[in-house]
């Protein structure tokens, strides 16, 4: 049986001090249920700023799949940060292509898959709805290129022909 790691009342003095500062400057809109003020985590354990240990069965809303600060994940982030932190999706880099390739291998779609990258689930769903509408919608503006990303590289830069892509003309935007 693990010993109790509660060292202070909850929230402890350091947590209370931070909660008071937060109340003045952070949005009250967050749906926070109880005053857990995090210091650090390891695996499925987290500690608050007063040194109290907790078992984390929420994982940041099902996010920390490999636990808090898994060494392999931390190392991968550090190595990437040493090279560059951001370039934008206007350019190419190895990590993005590798991840899309990896997803193509793992994908349950049963056929070759492509990936669009976002920052959150909301944006991923938004992108899915946009794609679904795009490929089924009828009346769309045709002043953009219909050249697909599968266009051979020897035709770079992509021609911007005013051609319509192949879209089913019988459907409106309904999802």
């Amino acid at each position: 049986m693990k010993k109790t790691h509660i060292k202070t009342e909850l929230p402890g003095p350091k947590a209370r001090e931070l909660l008071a500062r937060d109340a003045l400057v952070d949005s009250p809109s967050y749906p926070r249920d109880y005053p857990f003020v995090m210091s650090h985590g390891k695996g499925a354990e987290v500690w608050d700023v007063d040194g109290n240990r907790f078992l984390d069965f929420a994982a940041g809303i099902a996010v920390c799949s490999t636990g808090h600060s898994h060494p392999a994940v931390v190392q991968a982030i550090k190595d990437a940060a040493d090279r560059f932190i951001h370039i934008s999706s206007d350019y190419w880099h190895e990590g993005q292509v590798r991840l899309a390739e990896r997803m193509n291998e793992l994908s349950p779609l049963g056929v070759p898959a492509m990936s669009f990258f976002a920052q959150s689930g909301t944006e991923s769903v938004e992108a899915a709805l946009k794609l679904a509408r795009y490929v089924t919608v009828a009346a769309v503006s045709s002043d953009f290129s219909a050249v697909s990303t599968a266009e051979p590289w020897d035709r770079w830069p992509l021609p911007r022909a005013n051609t319509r892509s192949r879209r089913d003309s019988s459907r409106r935007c309904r999802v």
Partner: protein
Amino acid sequence: MPGVTHAPYPNNYRPLFAGADQGQAVLRYIEEVLFVHNVPAGEVAAILVEPIQGEGGYLVPPDGFLSGLRELCDRHGILLIFDEVQSGIGRTGKMFAAQHWGVAPDIMTLAKGLGSGMPIGMMVAKRSIMQKWARGAHGNTYGGNPLCCAAALATLDLVERQYCANAAKVGDYFMKKLRVLAQKYSVVGEIRGKGLMIGMELVTDQASRTPAKKLCDALITRAFHHRLILLSCGQSTVRFMPPLLIGEADVDEAVGLLEGALKEAMAGEHLPVRGAAAG
């Protein structure tokens, strides 16, 4: 959201429709009510569904529901989108939750567990569909951030090699332990889930199945004071979504803390702490 029509998620614990199989009932509702009175099937671009419902209450669909949706979509030429944001990346003991039923979507969305905490989402589509997107049709600033991609690649390796199978094994153990609680306490209505995506629905008593929202809120707070971090979902469901690496000892510890918190929450709500039934 304009242009969106909602359909209920099948819930055999709280049936909305007549009949034992709420999955088939929802499929009939879509086809015989929505498509007839609300939106013609020919105008529907896609049906978007979570293979296991998340925020709505951790609902596991009845067998045959997802395959029925697939068949319905195919018949009407509608795209099927699986939202695996919460259920994907090993959470349910398979890499993707829909693999429990062997149903393939046309498009799938991911986030949450994918980056182990780094903010990344992916929308994965059949190449035949996504390659129709023209250059400039959709883009963003941060998409494909190298730190996020690196974290996701490391995460996928760990989940595929180790944690996915662990989630299946430890999840089964966890559910068994929670079902023991359901035998002991009449306020524990239903235990449901797959792998380490588990919901425990709280009710005023098992006979009435009335959602016990205040008790659920109280339990979440009392659990914190027992040093267990939990969140709720739906109306009165406690959800368990620990890191996929936990072992049975972690489950034993958590269930012990949970039971202590539950007794306190019940006392605070003036609910008798008693066995629901013998055994």
